[in-house]
C-alpha cells in the first residue's frame, strides 16, 4: 500500500506529488477527470493537436509530466468513499477497489458557488467555470451571445476566454463597485503587480466593446426551454421601489459569484471543520503542515479555503513535507528547514488572497431573487416554496431537517448544489431561526456507484460522521 494517496490532480495535488517524489515517498494520485491539471491547468485531450498552446497550458503540461514520472496516476477514477481510518474506495469505470494508504492528501478543489434565481435551470445558463472548461478542454464555442455575471477577477478571465473563442460577449455584470471596494484599496495598493493583472483582463474587453456594468447583478433568466434573455438589475434599490430591470438577448449566461470548497471527503474522514469567512462555509481546519485533526489526513488547495492556484501549490508542497515528516522519513529539523521558504511565500500570497472576497463580495441581495416556484434542488426539482415551508411550517432550523421533509439534497449530487445555496437563502428569507452555518451531513458514497460492484471489497461503512448512506441516491 502507498505511503501517500493524493485525491485531486490540480495545482495542489500536482505540487504535492512533485515534492513527495523528491522526498522518496511512494505516491498514488487519483482524479476522476480523464486529464490531470485540475481547474487551473485544465488540459485538452492529449491526442488533440494544438497549434497555439497558452503559457499556462504549457506550464501545466510540464508540471504534469514531472508528476507522472514521480507517482502512479489513476485518471478517470473517482474516490467514492473514505472512512474514519482513511481507507479509500475507488471506482474506475465501474470496477471498484479499496486502498489503505499510510496517509491521504485531500486536494479536491472547489466549484462555482451556486446561486438560485428564476430561470437558472434553463439550458444555456451555466457556471462561469463550465464555460471555461468547454473552451479549454473541449475547444468549443459555448454559445453565440453571452452575458457574464458575478463578482471578482474570474469573471474577466472567463469573459476574455469567451471573446477569444469567438463568442459575442455583450456585457460583464459585476456586483462590486469602486465605492464598495474603496475601504480595501489602501491594502490592495500594496500589491501593484496583482492589481495590474486585474486591469490587464479588463482592458482588452473594453477595447473589444464589451460593456462592464458595476453594481449590477442578475435578476432572472428567461426563455422557452432554453435561455433566450437575461434580466439585469442594480444590486441595491430603494426600499420600496422594485429594482429597474434591463433585458439582454443571450443564449449563454455564465454565472460566477465565487467558489465553494469540496469538503465531503474531509467530513467523512472525521476532520474537524472551521468556519471560513471568505467562503462562508465550514472547511477542514489544518495545522502548519496542512495536517487535519484526523491522523494521517492532510488537506491542500481550494478544498480548505480560497487562495488561487499559487496558494494551492505552496500548500501542496507543504503537505508533502508534512507527510514525510509524519512518516518519519525526514527529521523535524529538516522538514522545518524545507518548509520555511514555502511558508514565507505562502504568507504573502494569503494576504492578497484574503483581500479578494472583500473587494468582490457576493452580494447578500442574491438571496432576494428566488421566487416560490424557483427550483432550489436541481436533482429532485424541489422548489423554493417547499424548502421555505419546511422552515416556516415544519420548523426546520438546519439543512438536515429540511432534507427529511423535502428530499432536497437526496439526489445524485448529494446536496452539493442546494447545500451551497440554501443556508443563506433560508436564513434570509424564512425570517426566523434557520442556522446559516448548517450544512448537509456528508454521506458515503460521495459518488454514485453500482451496487453490484460493492460486494467484492466490502461496502464503505457509513461512519459516525456519515449516518446511514444509501448505495446511491
Amino acid at each position: 500500500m502507498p505511503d501517500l494517496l493524493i485525491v485531486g490532480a490540480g495545482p495542489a495535488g500536482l505540487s504535492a506529488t512533485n515534492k513527495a517524489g523528491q522526498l522518496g515517498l511512494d505516491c498514488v494520485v487519483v482524479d476522476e477527470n480523464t486529464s490531470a491539471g485540475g481547474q487551473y491547468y485544465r488540459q485538452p485531450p492529449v491526442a488533440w493537436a494544438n497549434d497555439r498552446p497558452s503559457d499556462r497550458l504549457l506550464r501545466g503540461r510540464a508540471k504534469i509530466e514531472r508528476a507522472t514520472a514521480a507517482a502512479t496516476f489513476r485518471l478517470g477514477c473517482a474516490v467514492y468513499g473514505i472512512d474514519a481510518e482513511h481507507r479509500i474506495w475507488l471506482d474506475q469505470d465501474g470496477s471498484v477497489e479499496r486502498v489503505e494508504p499510510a496517509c491521504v492528501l485531500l486536494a479536491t478543489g472547489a466549484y462555482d458557488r451556486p446561486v438560485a434565481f428564476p430561470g437558472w435551470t434553463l439550458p444555456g445558463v451555466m457556471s462561469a467555470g463550465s464555460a471555461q472548461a468547454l473552451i479549454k478542454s473541449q475547444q468549443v464555442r459555448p454559445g453565440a451571445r453571452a452575458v457574464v455575471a458575478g463578482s471578482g477577477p474570474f469573471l474577466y478571465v472567463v469573459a476574455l476566454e469567451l471573446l477569444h473563442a469567438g463568442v459575442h460577449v455583450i456585457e460583464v455584470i459585476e456586483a462590486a463597485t469602486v465605492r464598495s471596494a474603496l475601504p480595501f484599496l489602501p491594502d490592495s495598493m500594496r500589491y501593484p503587480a496583482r492589481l495590474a493583472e486585474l486591469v490587464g483582463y479588463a482592458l482588452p474587453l473594453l477595447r473589444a466593446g464589451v460593456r462592464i456594468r458595476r453594481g449590477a447583478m442578475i435578476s432572472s433568466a428567461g426563455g422557452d426551454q432554453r435561455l433566450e434573455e437575461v434580466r439585469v438589475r442594480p444590486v441595491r434599490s430603494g426600499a420600496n421601489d422594485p429594482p429597474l430591470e434591463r433585458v439582454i438577448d443571450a443564449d449563454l449566461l455564465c454565472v460566477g459569484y465565487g467558489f465553494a470548497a469540496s469538503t465531503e471527503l474531509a467530513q467523512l474522514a472525521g476532520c474537524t471543520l472551521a468556519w471560513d469567512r471568505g467562503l462562508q462555509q465550514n472547511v477542514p481546519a489544518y495545522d502548519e503542515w496542512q495536517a487535519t485533526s484526523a491522523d494521517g489526513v492532510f488537506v491542500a488547495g481550494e478544498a480548505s479555503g480560497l487562495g488561487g492556484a499559487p496558494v494551492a501549490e505552496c500548500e501542496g508542497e507543504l503537505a508533502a513535507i508534512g507527510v514525510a515528516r509524519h512518516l518519519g522519513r525526514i527529521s523535524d529539523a529538516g522538514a522545518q528547514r524545507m518548509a520555511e521558504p514555502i511558508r514565507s511565500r505562502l504568507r504573502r500570497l494569503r494576504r492578497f488572497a484574503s483581500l479578494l472576497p472583500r473587494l468582490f463580495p457576493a452580494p447578500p441581495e442574491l438571496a432576494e431573487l428566488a421566487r416560490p416556484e424557483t427550483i432550489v434542488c436541481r436533482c429532485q426539482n424541489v422548489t423554493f416554496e417547499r424548502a421555505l415551508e419546511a422552515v416556516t411550517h415544519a420548523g426546520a432550523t438546519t439543512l438536515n431537517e429540511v432534507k427529511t421533509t423535502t428530499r432536497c439534497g437526496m439526489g445524485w449530487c448529494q446536496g452539493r448544489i442546494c447545500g451551497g445555496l440554501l443556508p443563506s437563502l433560508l436564513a434570509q428569507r424564512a425570517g426566523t431561526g434557520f442556522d446559516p452555518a448548517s450544512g448537509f451531513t456528508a454521506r458515503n458514497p460521495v459518488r454514485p456507484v453500482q451496487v453490484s460492484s460493492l460486494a467484492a471489497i466490502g461496502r464503505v461503512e457509513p461512519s459516525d460522521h456519515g449516518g446511514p448512506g444509501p448505495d446511491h441516491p
Partner: protein
Amino acid sequence: MDASSSPQLDRLAGPRRGSALTIDVDGEPIPCFAGETIAVAILTVRSWISQDAVRRRGLYCGIGVCFECVVAVEGVPGIRACITLVHEGMFVQTRLDAEIDA
C-alpha cells in the same frame, strides 16, 4: 429546427480532434470525435442534454460536481455527461424517466 432546439455549442476550427466516431443517443446516431465528452457531442446537435419529468437539462457546473448532466450509458444511470468521454457505438439514454432516474 426551431430556436429552442438549435445547438448550444460549435466546435472551434483550430485544433485537430481525435478520430471521427458515432454514438447512439436514444436511437439517433450522433457524429463526434474521440476525446470529446458526451455533453459536447449532444450539445453540438441540440440545446439540451437530457429531459426529466419537469424540464430539459443542460450543463451547469461543467466539472462533474452538480450531476445536472446525468444520462444513462449502456443502461447504467447517473453517468455525468460533462466528464465522460465518448467511444464508438456508445449507447446513451437521455430521457430521465422513472426507469433510469433512480
